[in-house]
């Protein structure tokens, strides 16, 4: 029972990451109809917003300490951060410690800006082009973005810890009457889950309670006719793209403490997020979110020893297996709309 609860928690947490990435992807892929292979790169850039902010906060001046020696036997050059010298060691340290949450604010304008530039400068010309061309150009872009990040940050993962206040884990077990330490869950992952729920809710509300969503959907189905109705669809597409980039970026910002960011983390998630979006059904935001959680939970269960011992290697293939089964039983995924990218 406790193992079960634990895996549900895990699944929800994993699922929230999948759902968040898939949400951003589906805004572009499911709604605008652009196969965006650069979406993973946006996620990665989000994570590197965290890294960058923490680097910026850690900018330091150097002081030579002749009493100590460095590895070559020369006097040691010590580094002191400006932040600490400006705000005093305690406040300074606290600011540095909170760099990841602060990066949320830092990243929103950056991501929206990147989204705008990407859409206006590149994607705009590809709405009417075949999907294959979209794949090629966005894949090229993804590589370029990745390599730029790699050039500046290297290939190695960069540890980006959460604020100290969130280290450790919350003991659900004692709350539910189990033994202590049986059902624990890290605070930061709980934060991530809540954050994901918040973003998902906000995006839904935006698209549900305004006509924006309907217009964009209509624009994707038939740009020309929407233009005939006096609507400037280009502008809305740009906004949608910015929104999607921001969602992807925020997913990345908050993910940084969970796994140290590296330049190819986007590619690692890319295929999976496409699977999630398609299993959810093209063009359906609730579908993408539901599929994210479903696959997250199933993946967690598949990694349980009891199940692995029954079917060896099941955790290696579960996502794909489920995807196949769902797509065969439900032609358009969980909640897909008819006619969206079916040809």
């Amino acid at each position: 029972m406790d193992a079960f609860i634990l895996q549900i928690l895990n699944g929800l947490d994993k699922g929230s990451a999948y759902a968040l990435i898939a949400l951003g992807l589906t805004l572009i892929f499911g709604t605008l109809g652009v196969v965006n292979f650069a979406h993973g790169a946006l996620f990665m850039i989000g994570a590197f917003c965290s890294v960058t902010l923490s680097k910026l906060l850690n900018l330091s001046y150097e002081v030579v300490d002749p009493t100590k020696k460095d590895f070559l036997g020369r006097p040691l050059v010590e580094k002191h951060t400006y932040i600490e010298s400006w705000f005093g060691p305690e406040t300074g340290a606290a600011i540095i410690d909170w760099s990841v949450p602060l990066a949320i604010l830092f990243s929103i304008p950056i991501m929206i800006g990147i989204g705008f530039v990407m859409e206006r400068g590149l994607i705009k010309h590809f709405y009417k082009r075949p999907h294959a061309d979209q794949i090629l150009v966005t894949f090229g872009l993804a590589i370029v973005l990745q390599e730029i990040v790699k050039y500046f940050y290297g290939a190695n993962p960069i540890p980006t810890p959460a604020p100290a206040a969130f280290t450790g884990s919350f003991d659900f077990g004692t709350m539910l009457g189990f033994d202590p330490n049986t059902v624990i869950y890290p605070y930061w992952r709980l934060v991530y889950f809540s954050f994901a729920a918040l973003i998902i809710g906000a995006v839904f509300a935006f698209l549900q309670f305004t006509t924006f969503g309907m217009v964009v959907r209509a624009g994707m189905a038939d740009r020309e006719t929407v233009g005939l109705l006096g609507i400037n669809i280009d502008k809305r597409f740009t906004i949608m793209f910015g929104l999607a980039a921001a969602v992807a970026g925020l997913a990345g910002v908050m993910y940084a403490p969970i796994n140290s960011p590296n330049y190819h983390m986007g590619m690692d998630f890319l295929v999976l997020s496409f699977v999630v979006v398609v299993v959810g059904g093209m063009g359906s935001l609730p579908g993408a979110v539901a599929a994210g959680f479903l696959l997250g939970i199933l993946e967690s269960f598949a990694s349980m020893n009891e199940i692995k011992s029954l079917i060896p290697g099941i955790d290696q293939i579960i996502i794909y297996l489920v995807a196949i089964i769902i797509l065969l039983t439900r032609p358009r995924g969980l909640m897909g709309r008819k006619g969206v990218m079916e040809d």
Partner: protein
Amino acid sequence: MLGLNKKDATLLLLVAILALCAPFILNPFPEGSALAQFNAGYPDLMQRFVIFGIFAIGFNILFGLTGYLSFGHAAFLGVGSYSAVWMFKLLSMNVIPAIILSMIVSGLFAVVIGFVSLRRSGIYFSILTLAFAQMSFNLAYSVLTPITNGETGLQLTLNDPRILGESATADGSIPVTNLFGLEMRSTFQMDVGAWLFQFNVGYYLCAFIMLLAFYLSLRIFRSPFGMMLRAVKSNQQRMRYTGLNPRPYTLAAFVISGMYAGLAGGLMASMDPLAGAERMQWTASGEVVLMTILGGAGTLIGPVLGAGFIKYFENIFSKINDNVLHGWFSFMPDGLEDFVVGIVHPFIGKGWHLTLGILFMLVVIFLPGGLVEGGQRIARALRKDKSDDKSNAKSNPAE
């Protein structure tokens, strides 16, 4: 000629000449010159060009004609390789049975995967094929290690039975792949002045098979079957109401292209008897998609060009390091030399991905029809230059 019209026959002839003379064409720079770095005329890379060419030609039969975008074609390549290596391990080092088996096995795989995946179209189809390939890859890497040798890849050993051959040669090493005794790796070297040309048996076998594959694809493109496949792409609804069932056509195309992939895999293993799981990863499937689009999907020669383009970058650009750069620019004054090297540095060696990414974008932005369109534009420009009459602007059907 050979049941082809004049234009196609010319194209085939052109490809044949290119393939035959590749050792010369790809080695334009004299040995030891600064530009020798850009020579690609060595057996391994030439083999890769034609093998990936076969892979892409096959992929294009499915994608270019029917529009079904498979994102899992690498699975067939991988399966083909494994089959071939197993043949080398169990039967003999002759490449013929290995290649045949690899085509059969990948064909069977394609029947199964195609049968299931083709129940859906569009992106749903793509994801189904992707899912199958990723499952194959993940399993090959882990659970199926007894068959695939997992991470390392399936290799030959001295203990393999090789019923019709020998486990080990007289001097105690693993025998090499051959075609009835003609060793794949044997290379005839021709020294011409500063040039060294290499004529490799394996390459010519691959090139010959590639020509066959190309010829077959030409015939398929021009055949009634090819027309049906284009009809599938164009309007399945109309097809059904015309009394044609699209499913067997798409399945046939899928299996044919799967067998092409298997053939490529088998050849790869024949040139270098190792089969690694990465050959089945989505990135490998993505690569053939990129090759095809880059060259020009739906055109006959495009995929081959695309394959050559990507493999060239992978193998040539990745090997240019700062040392080489300094060698090239050593004629410049020191400060300038460092500056130029500094500028070029991010794009070569470990930065070859960056260059490739940029080129992908440039090609697709400026040449919507891929490299083939680039060629056509050049040809058109040349023609215009010659005869300055108003060219008939009729768009000619795709190559």
